[in-house]
């Protein structure tokens, strides 16, 4: 049957072309990731001390952006209240340091992560699970409302310091060593960022990550395949909350104070900006977006403090209209967001094919 053979051949060719495309995209991604990492490693050597402090803040915020990217970019849950987990962890560790004198790094960072995880489990469980599957609009407005309510509560509650928040948090300690801001703190934050990044990368490349990408693209179809979509969403929401909690606790100790904006709508929308700018659905996009937005804002706010937010709004609008996948889509194709089944197996097949011919 010649026609069938021809069909097989073209299908094979298409598969090979596809696999080639994937591995090329993978290479581009690896190169970008490597460049970012090398840049981040040598940065403190070249910068003044006060700029290292700024760079540390960017790294911590990039960790936070990663948590939002996981939730929105991969699972398609629009969390307008990601700061709720960031801020509650910040407040939590600030209270630990203020009232219980606990500043050991081995205790406060896990505590912050746990706080983020628990809050995310509670809110995510309530919003996402249940008899009626929750609509996207409901979840996004629900998270927004949650963050707004937390902001109001933090502002009005005397125990949490009201409008002023909790000032002068003591530095983190490791044994008797006090970790204050500077290049050591920078490398700590960067190390945590790399660990979390690699873990997230592993997660999104796994079967679970593929199911998430499917969920984002077409939830109903994934549900028909037999996945419990609401559970998948709740799980990734909780993981995102834990990462946000980790970055929130780092942020609190780095800045030395926490204040109500950190838990409310302001920071929640800020992280949305980072990820949209960089490109949602690619982990490196979130990191790059954070660096670009924070860097621009640092550079411009000296001279153009008043018009910077306007410029930010215009840029955001342009990105949404013309580059919905963010700046990273200039170099990476849409394929990267979707993921693929066992690229390695396909590579092997291609090698066999080459050997045969």
């Amino acid at each position, binding site marked *: 049957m010649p026609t069938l053979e021809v069909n097989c051949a073209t299908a094979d060719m298409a598969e090979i072309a596809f696999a080639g495309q994937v591995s090329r995209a993978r290479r581009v991604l690896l190169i970008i990731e490597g460049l970012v990492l090398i840049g981040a490693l040598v940065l403190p050597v070249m910068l003044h001390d006060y700029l290292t402090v700024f760079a540390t803040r960017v790294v911590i915020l990039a960790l936070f952006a990663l948590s939002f990217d996981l939730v929105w970019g991969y699972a398609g849950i*629009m969390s307008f209240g990601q700061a709720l987990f960031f801020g509650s962890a910040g407040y939590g560790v600030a209270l630990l340091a203020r009232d219980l004198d606990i500043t050991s790094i081995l205790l406060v960072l896990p505590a912050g992560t746990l706080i983020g995880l628990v809050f995310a489990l509670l809110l995510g469980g309530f919003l996402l699970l249940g008899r009626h599957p*929750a609509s996207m609009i409901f979840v996004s407005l629900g998270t*927004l409302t949650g963050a707004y*309510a937390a902001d109001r509560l933090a502002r009005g509650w005397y125990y949490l310091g009201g409008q002023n928040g909790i000032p002068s948090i003591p530095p983190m300690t490791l044994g008797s060593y006090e970790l204050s801001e500077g290049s050591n703190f920078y490398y700590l934050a960067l190390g945590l960022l790399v660990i979390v990044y690699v873990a997230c990368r592993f997660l999104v490349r796994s079967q679970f990550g593929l199911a998430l990408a499917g969920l984002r693209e077409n939830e109903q179809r994934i549900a028909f395949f037999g996945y419990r979509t609401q559970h998948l969403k709740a799980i990734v929401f909780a993981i995102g909350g834990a990462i946000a909690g980790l970055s929130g606790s780092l942020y609190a100790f780095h800045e030395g104070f926490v204040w109500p904006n950190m838990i409310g709508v302001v920071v929640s929308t800020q992280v949305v900006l980072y990820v949209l700018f960089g490109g949602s659905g690619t982990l490196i996009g979130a990191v790059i977006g954070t660096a670009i937005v924070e860097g621009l804002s640092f550079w411009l706010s000296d001279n153009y403090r008043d018009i910077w*937010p*306007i410029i930010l709004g215009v840029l955001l609008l342009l990105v949404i209209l013309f580059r919905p996948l963010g700046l990273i889509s200039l170099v990476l194709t849409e394929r990267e967001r979707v993921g693929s089944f066992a690229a390695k197996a396909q590579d092997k097949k291609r090698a066999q094919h080459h050997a045969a011919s």
Partner: protein
Amino acid sequence: MTSAFMAAFEILSFGAIIVLIVLGLGIIASMMGIFNFAQGEFVLLGAYITYLAYSHGLPVWLGMAAAPILVGLLGFVLEALIIRRFYAAPIVAMLGTYALGLIIRESVRGLIGGFYLTVPEPIGGSIDIATIHISAWRFTILVITALVMGGCFLLLSRTSFGLRVRATLENPALARASGVSTNFIYGTTFAFGAALAGLAGALIVPVFDLFADLGIRFLIQGFVAVMLGGVGSFMGPVAGAGIIGALSAALPWVIPPVLADVLVFLLAIVFIKCRPQGLIAQGGV
């Protein structure tokens, strides 16, 4: 007795303000499926236009009359240029309108600085009934809200324009096939919603003063009210707004204000979770 009456008036008039603000938000959300994050900034613009008229020596009521017209025009232009691209994707629409709102809010902040600017009430003084004094302006807001609400209801339920709007909401493809210009309907609906927000801003500025975050203050309350009432009808958001407004004004009389705020949101979200279609399920006007 007197204080009970005062409390009732306070609750009613705050409820009316929330209804006025939510009306435009609800119309846009119901008719177009877009949760407009820039709605708070339309309110802010309405207030700002009123302040501009006042600071240039014009009568305040003139500014109040101009505000809805100007904001409505702006809404029409924005719909044609930007919002139109977002209809297919509600989440992207949220982000896009958020960016628009950011631009408007920060521009106004740049223009007025970080100040609280006051605008006098066009109708000052108070209405006295026996021993009870109620603010004449807040009473006027109450009356105007009732008139606007009635007008919107009649427009949507009795006129041929309203029929076309509802047809577009119900089934856009069929409406287009029947010769309704859905693009024009969407444009006008958005402009109308924006104009209502402008009117709301103009009317409330003597009560709340003008500051850059005026719109944000009401935006989340507005969203919760629309969800509570139910998207897809005219009466739903109005009912939701009435409840949210009344609760927000009434609860601080019984429990600490901070808790009251949070409790209102909590109750509303739990209610919506249990009844996603809202108070008034789809159907009717």
